[in-house]
């Protein structure tokens, strides 16, 4: 039986003015996939990820989520994306940002219940029950009443993960989730992400943690110049890369390994 992909991306382009960042990306994301996206800065990997929940509006191409192609086609012009449609997609596509972006004026609990209450109109008691469960999952059950300013970077990012998971998305996007963290805080966040991957959740992860990609992802994508240069199982892409750009990138990343 062939299963319908969770996400289908066809001919995705994105330009910022004259800067053509994404130059035609095709990808099928299947349920349960954990896809690591690697690439040098400027390769377009973050922009690609941000197109998938429409933080950036694609300049061209089609994104099909759960069988539905998002937006409305117009002849001769790029698609239009009404806000009402995007808010629905975004509830199903969770995103975790490099800079956490917690709401500083709300408690940890308030951060997690916000989407449930305001967007999904869930009653307070149910929303808080759900939020406490998500907090327990990321190991921060006792921090519910704290404000974000009282948390470490690693704790903030775990709260941000809980906030995204609370909406029960069918796809999670991680945009360099550990790049803003002090080195000693990276592993607590990676462990949480690994736990989520082990549950079989579908996710795409932009990262510089090549080792993590190797151990956790089932597929690795290497991007450069706005296109996917190489794609395959981590064993193949990371240990036996075929594309010279992938080889050069990995050589740089492994330079100081011992």
């Amino acid at each position: 039986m062939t299963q319908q992909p969770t996400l289908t991306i066809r001919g995705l382009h994105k330009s910022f003015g004259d800067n053509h960042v994404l130059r035609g990306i095709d990808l099928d994301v299947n349920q349960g996939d954990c896809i690591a996206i690697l690439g040098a800065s400027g390769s377009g990997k973050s922009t690609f990820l941000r197109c998938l929940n429409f933080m950036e509006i694609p300049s061209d191409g089609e994104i099909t989520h759960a069988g539905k192609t998002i937006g409305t086609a117009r002849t001769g012009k790029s698609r239009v994306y009404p806000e009402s449609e995007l808010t629905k997609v975004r509830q199903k596509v969770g995103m975790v940002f490099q800079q956490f972006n917690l709401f500083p004026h709300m408690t940890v609990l308030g951060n997690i219940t916000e989407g449930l209450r305001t967007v999904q109109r869930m009653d307070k008691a149910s929303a808080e029950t759900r939020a406490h469960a998500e907090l327990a999952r990321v190991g921060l059950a006792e921090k519910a009443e704290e404000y974000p300013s009282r948390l470490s970077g690693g704790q903030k990012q775990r709260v941000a993960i809980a906030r995204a998971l609370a909406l029960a998305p069918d796809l999670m996007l991680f945009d360099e989730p550990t790049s803003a963290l002090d080195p000693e805080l990276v592993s607590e966040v990676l462990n949480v992400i690994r736990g989520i991957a082990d549950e079989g959740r579908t996710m795409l992860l932009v990262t510089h943690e090549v080792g993590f990609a190797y151990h956790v992802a089932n597929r690795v994508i290497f991007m450069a110049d706005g296109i996917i240069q190489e794609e395959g199982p981590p064993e193949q892409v990371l240990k036996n890369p075929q594309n010279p750009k992938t080889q050069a990138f990995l050589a740089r990343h492994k330079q100081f390994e011992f």
Partner: protein
Amino acid sequence: MEYVWDFGSVWEYRAALWVGLINTLRIFAICLVAGLSLGLAIGLARYSVRRWLRWPAACFIELFRNTPVLVQIFWFYFAFPILAPFEISALMAAALGITLNSAAFSAEIFRGGIQTIDPGQWEAGRAIGMRHREIMARIILPQAVRRMLPALTNRGIEIFKMTTLASAIAYADVLHQARLIASVNFNPIEAYTVVAIAFFVILYPIVRATYVLERRLAKGD
């Protein structure tokens, strides 16, 4: 020559001053509420995603920010009845001038406050499926208002002091009453001193209270 202070003659007319003070507070309340609300609305329009809302807001701000309040008050009081088929009271004319002027200034405060909020806050709201309007109301404004509080306090103080301009069109505010008392008793120093003290006594506790509010709101930052 030694000046002999005579507050007794002002005290005799305390009832008239009291009436003036009530009138001052009345016009202040109107202008504060209307000016800040309208300012918020125009500030939001100025920041709207819709062009047809943005540019009228910008025109409004520039028009009322760059003309003197006193001229606006005179205009509404003397010129408006010539153009419109009805007259407006001194209270209405003064309140209108002060409100529109304050709205123009507070719109800029609101817009500036909104712009200081990290774009990541917008993105985080969008990422969990919130609409523009919901993000503004639940995420951006609550944070922006905290940062704007000192500027808004200043605006409130300005509005309160601006109400004395209403006396120029014979609205019976506290300054107008004091001027009457001074002209009857020939004691302008005492009469205006009382007005100054009245303003200070009312404003200072309010300012202190906003300091406390600022500190309480600062939790979580």
